[in-house]
């Protein structure tokens, strides 16, 4: 049963029909989708979610697809929510959980938003899917397009990490490497979308695409036993994930699926690209663009279109925002791996490093139940840690050699 009503401008409120369009015809503001929440409240029960597939699609009623939309799903979501006591001790927090989206089909949370977008693209009869990407989206689009038997074009900055390039090219996409920053790639893709009429998942399909991130919140709520956490920390690139996580929890609360309780939403950015955190810390009303320069390339969006929405969400919830230097990011990756056995990409390092700062400053209270959102797998960004890892003990294949190395002598 689809509860989708149509599109609605997030700036001026003007309503329009469902279409692969992301811009309000009146005010050029961003479009969002609108649901019939009253009908959902009447027709959907928590048991319906529990009885659904063990993937993000158990929450289909709250996702922007129709009854007959073909769902392109590689088995995304319902990822582990792990109690992280070792990490908690290191951060000085008593109740820390990690939502580990590093384990999705293409190893990042992007599979959630792409599964929705590619399904919607099929519904609209789009013949080609495309995206502008800092890396994770490219892999997900390429993989889902393969599954949907659609040609795809993915546009990436030319200096993207090699692992991400391989993780994208393998699916047989058309990879376009652009000599520029992500922001330049993004701008180019807006022009290509206009000129070629392709379905860019994060441009003209954005209203549908973005909704997929709400499932991060829904799953967290269900996995915690149908309650929200007290505090969440999410990385900020374009600002969509943080905003949609908050929306997911508030929908569940408004629909009566979880008890009403205050939820603080905090954001994590890299110091080399922190337009939202800077705006928060300076008290600015709006986010101003910056030029990105950070090892956290997946967060290197200097001009986040959902930046103001993320800023407002953080402020209204009583959360905070922090930023992490390159050194702190790597330390965050190592801390998560060595305390909880989770290898996250640089964005995960950002989230952990910022959670540490938010805890140290008291913005996160030690008694709060905190969830950290880990959005991508460490194998996507191995180069940043390679030089820091302890070298293997290299020995001859003899017991004596091994005993000698254990005793501290050179074998």
């Amino acid at each position, binding site marked *: 049963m689809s509860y989708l009503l149509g599109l609605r401008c997030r*700036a001026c409120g003007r309503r329009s029909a469902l279409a692969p369009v*992301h*811009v*309000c*015809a009146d*005010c*050029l*503001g*961003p479009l969002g989708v609108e649901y019939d929440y009253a009908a959902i409240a009447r027709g959907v029960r928590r048991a319906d979610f529990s009885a659904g597939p063990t993937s993000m699609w158990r929450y289909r009623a709250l996702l922007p697809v129709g009854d007959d939309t073909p769902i392109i799903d590689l088995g995304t979501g319902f990822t582990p929510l792990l109690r992280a006591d070792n990490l908690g001790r290191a951060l000085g927090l008593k109740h820390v959980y990690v939502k580990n989206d590093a384990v999705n089909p293409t190893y990042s949370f*992007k599979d959630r938003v792409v599964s929705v977008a590619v399904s919607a693209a099929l519904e609209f009869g789009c013949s080609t899917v495309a*995206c*502008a*990407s*800092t890396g*994770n*989206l490219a892999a997900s689009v390429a993989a889902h397009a393969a599954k949907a038997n659609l040609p795809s074009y993915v546009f990436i900055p030319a200096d993207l990490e090699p692992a991400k390039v391989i993780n994208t090219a393998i699916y047989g996409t058309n990879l376009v490497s652009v000599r*520029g920053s*992500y*922001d*330049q790639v*993004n*701008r180019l893709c*807006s*022009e290509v979308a*206009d*000129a070629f009429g392709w379905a860019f*998942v*994060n*441009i003209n399909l*954005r209203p549908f*695409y973005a909704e997929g991130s709400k499932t991060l919140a829904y799953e967290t709520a269900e996995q915690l036993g149908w309650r929200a956490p007290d505090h969440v920390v999410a990385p900020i*690139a*374009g*600002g*969509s994930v943080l905003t949609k996580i908050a929306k997911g929890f508030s929908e569940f609360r408004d629909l009566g699926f979880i008890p009403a309780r205050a939820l603080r939403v905090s954001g994590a950015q890299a110091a080399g690209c922190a337009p939202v955190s800077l705006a928060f810390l300076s008290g600015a009303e*709006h986010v*101003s*663009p910056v*030029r990105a320069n950070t090892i956290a390339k*997946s*967060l290197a*969006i200097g*001009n*986040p*279109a*959902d930046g*103001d929405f993320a800023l407002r969400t953080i402020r209204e919830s009583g959360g905070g925002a922090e930023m992490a230097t390159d050194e702190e990011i790597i330390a965050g990756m190592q801390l998560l791996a060595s305390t909880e056995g989770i290898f996250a990409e640089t964005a995960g390092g950002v989230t952990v490093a910022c959670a540490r700062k938010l805890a140290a400053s008291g913005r996160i209270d030690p008694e709060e139940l905190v969830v950290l959102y880990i959005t991508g797998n460490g194998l996507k960004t191995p180069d940043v840690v390679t030089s820091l890892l302890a070298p293997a003990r290299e020995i001859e294949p003899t017991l004596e050699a091994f005993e000698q190395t254990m005793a501290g002598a050179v074998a």
Partner: protein
Amino acid sequence: MAARTDVIVRIPSPLRPLTGGQGEVSGKPGTLRALIDDLERTYPGMKSRLCEDDGTLRRFINVFVNEEDIRFLEGLDTALEPGTRVSILPAVAGG
């Protein structure tokens, strides 16, 4: 065809109804502010789609001059030389 003395302006699809469907139009060199007024004279209604009542650019419009965001330049006071490419785009970002 735009002369090399003109400024070339890319128009995003939502605004093409105002330009008779054209995705690219020409303008005169000068400031970006003056260009918008110039566009308004040729394509009435354009200015109010781009600017608030106080003349500032609307929140969800991005303008690029030779691929550079005007917020890194002089905003609406950015000077446009002959042959400059101006791109008007709705704000959007992803990852």
